[in-house]
């Protein structure tokens, strides 16, 4: 089964992925994604009825600890990497007028 990725799908996935693709990139993405999905469709050859999806190989339990702060105040070290900083906070573009 050949997958065909529509313009709408690429637009939609671009929104989900927060990526702005050029027209050229969009065309390439349509082809790449269709090729990959054709390839991934191979998994449908396997009967997985009744198989539990395995997200982790070992049985994972929640790891709990006391709610005690163990790290120090490293605000200024963290903010040194921020593209925008003001008054000890991350500076983001205006979101509400």
């Amino acid at each position, binding site marked *: 089964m050949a997958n065909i990725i529509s313009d709408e799908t690429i637009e939609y996935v*671009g929104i989900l992925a*927060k*990526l702005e693709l050029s027209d050229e990139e969009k065309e390439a993405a349509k082809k790449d994604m269709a090729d990959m999905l054709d*390839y*991934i469709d191979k*998994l449908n050859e396997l009967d997985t009825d009744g198989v539990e999806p395995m997200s982790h*190989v070992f049985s994972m339990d929640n790891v709990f600890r006391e709610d005690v702060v163990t790290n120090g105040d*490293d605000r200024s070290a963290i903010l040194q990497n921020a*593209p925008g900083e003001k008054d000890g906070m991350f500076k983001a573009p205006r979101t509400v007028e």
Partner: protein
Amino acid sequence: MGLLELTAAGLAEKIKAGEVTSVQAVEAVLENIAEKEEALHCYVTIDKEGAIKKAEEVQKKIEAGTLSGALAGVPVAVKDNICTAGMLTTCSSKILGNFVPPFSAQAVHALEAAGAVILGKTNMDEFAMGSTTETSAFGVTKNPHNTAHVPGGSSGGSAAAVAAGECFFALGSDTGGSIRQPASFCGVVGMKPTYGTVSRYGLIAYGSSLDQIGPLTKDVADCAAVLEVLASHDLKDSTSVARKDTDFSAALIPDAAGLRVGIPRDYFGEGLDSEVRAAVLEAAKVLQEKGAAVEEFDLSLVEYAIPAYYTIASAEASSNLERFDGIKYGYRTPDFDGLHSMYKKTRSEGFGAEVKRRIMLGSFVLSSGYYDAYYLKALKVKALIKKAFDEAFQKYDVILGPVAPTTAPKLAESLKDPIKMYLGDIYTISVNLAGLPAMSIPCGMDSKGLPIGVQLIGDCFQEKKLLRAAYAYEQAEKEGGSRQGLLL
């Protein structure tokens, strides 16, 4: 024997014995780096002053008798997706091109506690997505055995640095083969430990359920020594496992008596280069001569590992890489109109083509309407693959096969056809899906003079069996005087 030819453990012994200092070792490596780096480009960042200063501190502690580990004073290179406090950590991506972490990864703390001296950060495929180190935003790393060829990837800088003597050992990370395949292409030893053995704290995430940090070394004994230092139970990584059997060097026994070795027929089918096949089967014969019981078997499901892997890894990547938003760290686009425009432009300009390809695919397979058909289906197939390995390990201690279908391809040949490149991961990828330990050790050269690696796969937590088999093989080859794939 020159200083640079020493193994990490060999160097540590000489430092301990007072025959050489850590500073001299660092200076020798830096000199070698200065000579070779232009041709090879193993590093993104080289911290000359920091390394010499650190070596001086470490040397004092060694002389004072307060530091005496197996790696005390030994210069190491760290893959650039592992955070180092105060040292640039880029993931070989423009989007993290200026990122200086305020903290170090747990693996880096472990190295430092053992007295290893960090030289710098090695080049890699951007965000570890690739098999050639060509998707790096900071240039291509070349294979030290032949600079017209790739070193493999994604830990290509680490593998090339070890092979070229630009460090005594290195850290890499392995999500689908990213330690083992470059180790194979560069003729060094590389191990991906059992999932959960080495803390992922401070490893910049690609596919969190698959990622694992591990050593790239000059020989098997170094691999055991480094793994001993790295393995720890870390509360900062909720998937970290508390293990007691981490005295890995105890497994270095030069015979394979009683080891049951299985050779999966499915790993020797179409697409496998004939010279690689011959070298790998020859390695199996050596283990047999050393006392192992070797037989062929059918592993099954091998061809389903790649589609399952790319579904799961891309899904996890699309989620993990959401954090790169131009606000907290890294690159921010200079021109934008509002918050969403800033997000989109920052990410579109900051990520390279392969990373965008995987984020797009991952976003799609997780999206409403496709989640069950693709993502859940892949997780079910993962369960089947794990079961196939469980059955195999009831009969065998070690599964032996090739690491990659070919030796290192030429530069610029792989990226043209992504699916073909992904197919090169066929022998390594299922190990990550099943959480298993596996290693690559050099087992010869092809007629072009490029190294070939043999892969040993073990059941979860059975690194010692791998190390024993690997050591037995390595010692046998040394005795035979024919050890090929030797370091440069």
